Each structure stands twice: as structure tokens, then as C-alpha cells.
């Protein structure tokens, strides 16, 4: 009898999760409650992402190089009623979308980042700047004195657009997931992961482009020729910037910068969604809290019912939302890990298994300080 060669069990600190992924399971434990929480929270997240996406694209297209964009969150609809609601804070916290955009912009990654630093990009934006400020000699003089200023603003606007396009896809994936759950097609966490993975794969090569129209003239800022695509140029940098690295935003974490409690290199940052502590979140104005506040308006009734069974019912709703959200982010991360793995994770080939093991152990090193163990408690 010939025995099939077997890969030795991993000795990694998070070996259980490596084995789980190799068995085709997810980072998050499969249970009916987890499925309910993840699908429910992703539904509300999908609704919110839709709004964020629309606003980011609106800002990129219609607030182009507007330096005092007082009404950038109004999506072009400015009237006294909306203004009053805005001042009363009866609105979506679009600031959170900008926070994520800036995290992406700062951490960079992917061909988008490379393209924005290329001479091709600089050449493409110069006519736009000239057109935009044709009758504004002050700005043109400023541009000449500080030639990096306006390009940097346009790079940021490119990120506005790119993140908007990325979230457009993700929003649809999450809403579809919820619909399928309602129809009984989603029964387990692996089903959730599979749905997200298929969504990512389906749109993997969707082009990311960005053009602005000034005086009926269209200017391509991210032209199709740049070959920027959804998966590798927005999804992967987004996961890296927002899920993993993040920023040590005061209020989400305590640190003493002078005592070198912030890593020297950006690549070592671990302040993203997978690391966020749900407990300190709750003070007004902290970016994750803004997202929780937005999501609480769109929670499906079945998820609210679960939260209401908690010790504090709705008193600590934002913390409960954050905990569910973190669970869902580990599902999205699982889908990303599966999608980016060198080989299918359930492969029978020992060589492919070895390559996958190396790949997974590399990722698991980054998960050691994350909330992976807590969300599985």
C-alpha cells in the first residue's frame, strides 16, 4: 500500500488557523450566530458603503480642486432642509470614508500608487491644472512656486475615485449576500467567504479609471491605458491599508510617540480594522465610531434582536456592532487570503501545500497581535 505524503502540522503560534484555512474553512469559527451576525452587519455595511461610494465619486467628479468644499457631503443637493439635517447631524458620516481614503493614500501599494508617482501621470494632469485655473493667475503662480501641491491634491482625488469604485463593487457584494441569506442560500461562514470570494473574482479585472470634465473637455486622470484593476490596485491596497495597517488615530489607541511606541516603518503598522479594540470606541468623532453610528441605522431586525438580548441591550450597541463588524472583516480577509494564495488552499499536491503553508505562515505572523483569538472566543 502506498501512503499519500502528508504535510507536517504547522508549528506556528496560530497553527490552528493555518490548518483551518488549509481545510477550506474560514478564520472565523462557523456557527449559526456568527453567520447571522456577519450577514446582518454586512447588510448594513453594504447600505452604508453605497452612500460612501456615491459621495466619494461625487467629490472626485464635482469637487475637483475646490479648496473650500463646504457642501462636499451634500452630493449636489443643497437646500435648507438638508442643511438643517446636516447641522443636526441627521446624516451619514462621510468623514469615515475620507478617513479610509486617506489611509489608502498614505500607505499606498499596488500599481495605482506607482502610477500616481509616474511622469506619465504628471504629464496627464498638467493640462487639467492649466484648464482649471486658466483665469486664476494666483493659483497658477502658486502652482509654479509649489509644483508639488496641486499634483498631490489630484492624487488624493484619484484615491477618492478609486475607493468609491472599489466600494461600489463591495456594496453590491454585501447586499447580494444578504439577499441570498434571506433566501436560505447562505448557511455557513464558508458560504459567506465563498460568496465574497466569487464577488472579488468576478470583478477582479474591472478597470479602475477616473476622468474629469472641465468646460466640456474630458481629462483622463486614470486612463484605461494605465491598466489599473479592481482587485490588485484597489482591493489589495485597501485591505493592507485599512484592515491591517490603519493609523494610530488618537482615541482608538493610546501611545507615546516620543517613546517610540509607534513603529518606525509604515509597513509595521498594526492599527487596522483587524486589530481595533472595540472597547475604547465610543467617544464621538473617532473614525470607527462614525462607521458604527452609520451602520446602526441600517441593522436588520434579526440582528437588532440579538443585540437586544445582551446584558446592556442597546446601551452598548456600537461596541456590539464593532465586534460583529470585526468578525465580518475576518471573513472578508479569509476570502482575500484564499483569492491571493499561490494555489487553491485545499490542494492535494504536496508542493503546492508547502507553498501555501509558507504563504499562510507569513500572513499569520501579522495576525498574532490581531483580534483573531478574541473574535473566535
Amino acid at each position, binding site marked *: 500500500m502506498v501512503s499519500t505524503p502528508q504535510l507536517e502540522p504547522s508549528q506556528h503560534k496560530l497553527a490552528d488557523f493555518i490548518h483551518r484555512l488549509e481545510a477550506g474553512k474560514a478564520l472565523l469559527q462557523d456557527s449559526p450566530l456568527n453567520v447571522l451576525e456577519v450577514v446582518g452587519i454586512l447588510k448594513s455595511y453594504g447600505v452604508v458603503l453605497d452612500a460612501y461610494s456615491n459621495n466619494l465619486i461625487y467629490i472626485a467628479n464635482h469637487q475637483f480642486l475646490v479648496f473650500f468644499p463646504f457642501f462636499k457631503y451634500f452630493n449636489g443637493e443643497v437646500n435648507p432642509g438638508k442643511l438643517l439635517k446636516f447641522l443636526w447631524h441627521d446624516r451619514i458620516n462621510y468623514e469615515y470614508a475620507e478617513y479610509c481614503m486617506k489611509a489608502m493614500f498614505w500607505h499606498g501599494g499596488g500599481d495605482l500608487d506607482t502610477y500616481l508617482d509616474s511622469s506619465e501621470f504628471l504629464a496627464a494632469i498638467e493640462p487639467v491644472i492649466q484648464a482649471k485655473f486658466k483665469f486664476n493667475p494666483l493659483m497658477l503662480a502658486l502652482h509654479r512656486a509649489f509644483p508639488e501641491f496641486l499634483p498631490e491634491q489630484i492624487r488624493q482625488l484619484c484615491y477618492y475615485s478609486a475607493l468609491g469604485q472599489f466600494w461600489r463593487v463591495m456594496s453590491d457584494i454585501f447586499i447580494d449576500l444578504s439577499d441570498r441569506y434571506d433566501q436560505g442560500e447562505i448557511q455557513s461562514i464558508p458560504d459567506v467567504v465563498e460568496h465574497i470570494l466569487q464577488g472579488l473574482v468576478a470583478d477582479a479585472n474591472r478597470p479602475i479609471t477616473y476622468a474629469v470634465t472641465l468646460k466640456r473637455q474630458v481629462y483622463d486622470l486614470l486612463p484605461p491605458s494605465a491598466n489599473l484593476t479592481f482587485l490588485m490596485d484597489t482591493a489589495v491596497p485597501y485591505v493592507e491599508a485599512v484592515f491591517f495597517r490603519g493609523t494610530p488615530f488618537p482615541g482608538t489607541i493610546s501611545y507615546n510617540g516620543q517613546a517610540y511606541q509607534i513603529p518606525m516603518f509604515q509597513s509595521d503598522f498594526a492599527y487596522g480594522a483587524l486589530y481595533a479594540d472595540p472597547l475604547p470606541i465610543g467617544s464621538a468623532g473617532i473614525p470607527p465610531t462614525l462607521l458604527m453610528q452609520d451602520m446602526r441605522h441600517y441593522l436588520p431586525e434579526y440582528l437588532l434582536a440579538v443585540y437586544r438580548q445582551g446584558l446592556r441591550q442597546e446601551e*452598548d*450597541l456600537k*461596541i456590539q456592532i464593532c465586534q460583529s463588524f470585526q468578525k465580518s472583516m475576518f471573513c472578508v480577509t479569509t476570502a482575500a487570503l484564499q483569492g491571493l494564495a499561490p494555489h487553491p488552499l485545499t490542494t492535494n499536491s504536496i508542493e503546492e501545500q508547502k507553498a501555501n503553508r509558507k504563504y499562510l505562515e507569513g500572513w499569520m505572523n501579522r495576525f498574532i497581535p490581531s483580534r483573531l483569538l478574541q473574535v473566535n472566543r
Partner: protein
Amino acid sequence: MLSFLVWFPLGGVLLLGVWPKSMDPKYARSVALGVAIALLVWTIYLAFLFNPGQITMQFGEFVPWITAIGLNYHLALDGLSLPLLVLNSLLTLIAIWSTDPEIERPRFYYALMLLLNSSVAGAFLAQDILLFFLFYELEIIPLYFLIAIWGGARRGYAATKFLLYTAFSGIVLLASFLGIVWLSGASSFAYEPLRAIIVGAADTPSGLSLKLQLILMVGILIGFGIKIPFFPLHTWLPDAHVEASTPVSVLLAGVLLKLGTYGLLRYGVGLLPDAWVYLSPWLAVWAAISALYGTSCAILQQDMKKVVAYASIAHMAFILLAAAASTELSMIAAVCQMVSHGLISGLLFLLVGVVYKKTGSRDMFFLRGLLNPERGLPLIGSMMILGVMASAGIPGMVGFISEFLTFRGSFPIFPVQTLFCMLATGLTAVYFLLMINRVFFGRLPDELDHIPSVQWSDRLPAAVLVALIFLLGIQPSFIVRWSETQIAALIPYHPRPPQITSVYQPDQHLTRNSIDVLAQSISIRAAD
């Protein structure tokens, strides 16, 4: 009118005593609450009827009782007892409200609460020193049972210690009272005639010799010193507080300790003025030592309740300092400090009680991050911070008024002792901020991730106290105006007679000027 405050709660006790066991215990709480509300309303009504400008006692009620021994049922009210009476009624209501509705043996518990209220009210109103003593002793019984039955793990030890100390205090006081009456040749225990015999005409040395007064004063100081308590007579208090349930701690700190300071002012300053003035520099030294000792102990504590208990010892010492100085301003300050301490310590004990109820711990090295807005106790923590600020004498709150008046009134007479007491009040910020920092700031640990939510019924009594602390801090004349005129009558001498003040000679000119200016400013405020 005054008898209502003594007999109505006793009626409640009787009602709870004959209450059929078969009836729902929750009605016992309702009866107790009803009685407490009626008492508070009646006390406030009395306060409205009270004439602050009248020097003599008001609403007097006299019934001959055991005339053979000179004991009569004589109640009356003055500016010293009125604020304490209001405090008693208010804190009794708060204590009953804060009691766990599911408490065991509710009829007995609430009956004891009402008995406590009645005996304390009787002690504050008694115009016969033997009657005062009877009420003073009567109050020990319910308090002993309240600690011994509904207390913590070491309740037996704490209750017995309390009983031994206060019983000894009672014996010493009785001996002193008997000595005062017999040696002065009075025919009864009636307070005013006794004071007239001893003090005699205004501004003259008293009828009892200084030597006799000093001997009797030792008993008064030990007796009331245990009750207040001052170092080194204090050791029963931290144990009693730690073991007592929250409502009992509130009453103990808020009202019962005031029986000691009230007694000191009424019977120490009032009946033995020569000895008081003679000893006053040493009493001020004692106050400073007691304040610094309480403060130092509070800094070292790990149990939140012990911190508040030792803080209580430190702050009660300020009353002794103010009384020792015996200026118009400092005597008003003593009354203010009693009210202020009653409200602030009551608030702090209430809040510590809520923390303990919700987290199961008072350990400052275990608790952390309780200000967390969603999973912690944010409102309780915020009120605790306000209470701590009030205790540390932050302006705008009643603690500032009482401490400022105490130090301003005492400094011209005993500058060194006052400075040491000021140091103690400065250190209040140290131990309370240590407590706040450890317990309320930082990240909520995972062990405390599931604290049950706080009900409004838990927050309401503390919120009422916070409101009063602010109200009296902004408008102190609400306390001062009741006491101003009548407290002045208690001051031993103006100016101090030379045969007494030769022992200690402050700068009279400076002293009088300072006092006049401050007293004037207080009068203006009161008039406003």
C-alpha cells in the same frame, strides 16, 4: 411640631412591627419611603417657618417627664440643629431609596432605619442633656443591628467594635454630663438653665472653675471624639464603613458622625467655654494631626470605601479646627463643614456602593476604565469626579465654601495648625485623584466587560446630592442664613477674658478686623 420628627418615624417602626408576615415585603419599603418623604417635607416646612434672626430656641415643646431626677421631654430648634435635621431627613430618604428592594428581612431593616432617624432627630432637638444622651444611646442600637445583620463578611467584628467604642463613648459622656449638672448645682438637666448657670452673664468667665471644666472637658472630648471620630479614637470607623451596606454607610458618614461634632459644639463649646478656650490651641493641633493622619491613611488604601472613610476622618477634623478657633466666621464654617461633609461623603459612599454593586469589587488595583461610555459606568464615574472635586474644595461647590470659611476663620487664631489642615485638604486631591485615575480611567479590562447597566433609580439619589452640592456651592447663604445669628451666641467670649487668653494670645487687632470683614461679607451674601 418638632415631636412629629421623633414620633412619626416611631409610628412607622410600630407599623412595620405589627405588619403581618404574610403581606408582600415590598410594602415595607413603600411604608418606609412614605414616612421618610413625609419627614423630609415636614423638615423643609419647619425650615420655612424658622426665624433665622431670632437668637433664642424656636418651636419649643416641653412635657415634664421624670421630674424627680430632673429629666424632661424638651425639644427645640436653633440654627445649629436645623441644618443637621434637614440633612438627617434627606439622607434617610436617600438611604431608604438606595436600599436593595430585594433585601432580606425588610420589615426589620426598614424599622431600624426609621428608628435611627428618630433617635438622631431626637438628639439634635433635645434641650435636656439627659434626653440628648438617651437619644444618643438609642441610635447605637439600630446602627449596631444594621451593620451586624446586613453588613459584609466581617460584619460581626465591625459591629462589635462599633458597639464597644460607642458604648464607651456613651459612658464617658454620661459621666461628664452628670458631673456638669452636679458640680454646677443645677436642679435639672435642662440645657439653657444649665448654660445660664455655668456661663452666667454674657462675656464673663463661667461659674464652674477652669480646673473642673478641664476635667469634664476631657470626658466630652473623648466621648464625642470617638463618635466623630478623631485620631487615635477612630479605628472603629473604617471597619464599620467597609462592612456596612451602602445605605448604612451613607447615614453613618452623612449624619451619625455629626452627632459628635454637634455635641462638641453644643456641650463642649456651649457648656464648658473656659476649658474650651483654654484647650483650643491644643484642640487645633489635634485637628491638624487628625486631618493629616486621615489623609495619609487614605493615600495608602486599596479599598475605595476605606479611602472615603479615611477622607471622612480628615474632613471631620476641620470642624474641630473651626470650633477651636471659635470666631464668628469659623463657627459658621463648622456648621457649613458639617453640612458639606454630610452631602459629599454621602455622595461618595453612594457612588462607591453603585460601583461595588455593579462590579462586585472596590479594589482600586482591580477596577479600571469604568468611565467607558458604553460598557462602563460613565455617569456614576462623572458624578464621582464631581464629588471628589467638591471634597477637594474646588470653587463652585459646597466643599469650597466650607473649607474656605474654615481656613479663613481659623487662620488668624491658629495660623500654623490651619496651614497643616490646608495641607491635608490639598492632599485630598492626591488620594482622590489616585482613586479616580485607577478606577475610572484607562481601558476597561476584559474581566469588567460585562457590567450590568445602571438604572436611573441608582443614579437619582446621587444626582440629587450633586445638585445640592452645586446649589450650596453657588449660594452658600442657604446654609449660612439659618445659623449665622444663633451660632454667634455659642461663641465663648468676645473678647476672650485675659485670665484665659493669657495662655494663648493671638493678634487681637488683626483677628477682629479680619473676622469683621469676613463676617460682613458673609452677611452681605446672606442678605442677597
